[in-house]
């Protein structure tokens, strides 16, 4: 490394060093800065084998490692969002929906399935952050509410795995109402004595945190996940102060009594199985 960086590009020589490595083979870990084979992280449930840094993991991959035999029955897979407000910022909402659909993944920001964890039937709603930042509009609220209602009807525990920027602005007031709708369904589940476990992963903020994600009989977080109501930038702008170290990270929430436990991804399935068997003993 040179002592001084050129501020202008040279005529004949390129200023940046060129190293010929196939893209994506090696990555510098965001947690420990070690250089690691990308495949190694991927094969380790998207967790750095050296420092345990949890990378975000695609929703379907998460379901595969969570549920028995990596199988499930999916519900409402084709439910899609509508631009009923004709919402437009730089792009219209419809364009954003189309762009998200064109990725070929989920058709909205949550995948709702029925599966089993060590033989216990469960309803799982798992956010897909790749779809519009996991934001919650009508579709997400509706699918989650149906999951809770299925849990209620079939007396199965409900798990919601959150990864979301919050309520989806493009559906304005109806996005807000999804918070009330899902929380109302959880009230019924609670009265029926059926467990609801909220799993908070990086990031869980805004209207998702301020509704079902904080309402678990157990709130379980993944290590270092960002969890909060207001985003860190909004808070900094409001109070005009630097935020404390580790603010809104899972460990910080644990310290402040907001989550029951932090469970690493590797241990999530066995721990959940154990918890479910204890809570839902009459059904087991």
């Amino acid at each position: 490394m040179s002592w001084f960086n050129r501020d202008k590009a040279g005529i004949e020589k390129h200023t940046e060093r060129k190293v010929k490595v196939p893209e994506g083979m090696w990555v510098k870990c965001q947690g420990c800065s070690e250089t690691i084979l990308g495949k190694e992280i991927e094969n380790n449930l998207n967790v750095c084998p050296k420092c345990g840094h949890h990378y975000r993991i695609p929703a379907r991959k998460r379901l595969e490692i969570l549920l028995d035999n990596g199988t499930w029955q999916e519900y409402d897979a084709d439910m899609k969002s509508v631009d009923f407000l004709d919402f437009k910022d730089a792009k219209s909402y419809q364009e954003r929906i189309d762009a998200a659909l064109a990725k070929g993944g989920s058709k909205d920001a949550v995948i709702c399935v029925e599966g089993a964890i060590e033989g216990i039937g469960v309803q799982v709603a798992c956010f897909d952050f790749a779809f519009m930042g996991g934001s919650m509009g009508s579709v997400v609220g509706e699918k989650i509410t149906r999951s809770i209602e299925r849990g209620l009807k079939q007396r199965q525990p409900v798990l919601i795995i959150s990864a979301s920027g919050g309520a989806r602005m493009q559906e304005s007031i109806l996005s807000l109402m999804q918070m009330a709708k899902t929380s109302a369904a959880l009230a019924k589940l609670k009265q029926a004595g059926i467990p609801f476990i909220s799993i908070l992963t990086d990031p869980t903020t805004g209207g998702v945190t301020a509704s079902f994600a904080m309402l678990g009989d157990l709130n379980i977080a993944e290590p270092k996940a960002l969890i909060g109501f207001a985003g860190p930038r909004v808070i900094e702008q409001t109070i005009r102060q630097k935020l404390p170290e580790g603010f809104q990270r899972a460990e910080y929430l644990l310290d402040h009594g907001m989550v029951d436990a932090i469970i690493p991804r590797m241990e999530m399935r066995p721990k959940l199985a154990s918890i479910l068997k204890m809570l839902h003993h009459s059904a087991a």
Partner: protein
Amino acid sequence: MATPFHLEFEKPIVELEKKIEELNALAADGLDISADVATLEGHVEKTRKDIFANLSRWQTAQVARHINRPFTLDYVKHMFTEFVELHGDRNFGDDHAIVGGLARFDGQPVVVIGHQKGRDTKEKVYRNFGMPNPEGYRKALRLMQMAEQFKLPVITFVDTPGAYPGIGAEERGQAEAIARNLREMASLRTPIIVCVTGEGGSGGALAIAVGDRILMLEHSVYAVISPEGCAAILWSDGTKGEQAAEALKPTAKDIIGLGVIDEIIGEPIGGAHRDHEAMAATLKEAIARNLAELNKLSLDDLVEKRYQKFRAMTRCVE
């Protein structure tokens, strides 16, 4: 309503009113100009009516935030008797951005809860600009549960830019406090009437706005985020509030078709801030009418209907 305060778009009205004043000054000198004054006064009324009948969404947001708009304690003064304010969440403190207490509404004992803003600088700071901390929501919940225990209806007034985004608020569980209120209000076994009177700012508003009837004043707003907040995120420019307000469609007229509110309550011409008493009287009539309907339902029906009301708030294709 001590200080006169005019919004940008009220300029034509203010100019006309100035002319009337000038004329009146002339009249003091002995000129008979009563006919001219009367014409001008008619003109003022017409201009005001026209302007307020055609407010843009951004202008509506400004009326909703008008410094002289009636706040919760103004409604309490005009609509209820024997108000006893009750303080504190029994855990941490007393939040001044939410007020609540016992009162009589047409003789019937009720629990009143609402966001409270301030009018002068000192009071604004004391009320934290109407932005509650978690203990405000927890106080509200405590009072609602008390209402359930003693079979009292709950009447709430919603007027907040949003829940306070601060370090302490996060540490004490702002999200949890809001979430818990949503769940508990959904199943509270007593009637709940919600009045959106000013700014319905996101989760901070919703946390006292899950009810059997949602009434919304003509020039109030209710949305998932403030126009400025939305602009800061989607346009990366907090000054694009006007465009964001158009996109968010937060007015009563915009959202009644979505089934989110039940009734739009008309305001005095020129906005609620021009006549607190008249505004309170109109709103009181609507609350009384809705309360009488709700009082007839069994508690099981009431709670199930409330569930179905929010359950139906969906727009999607399958």
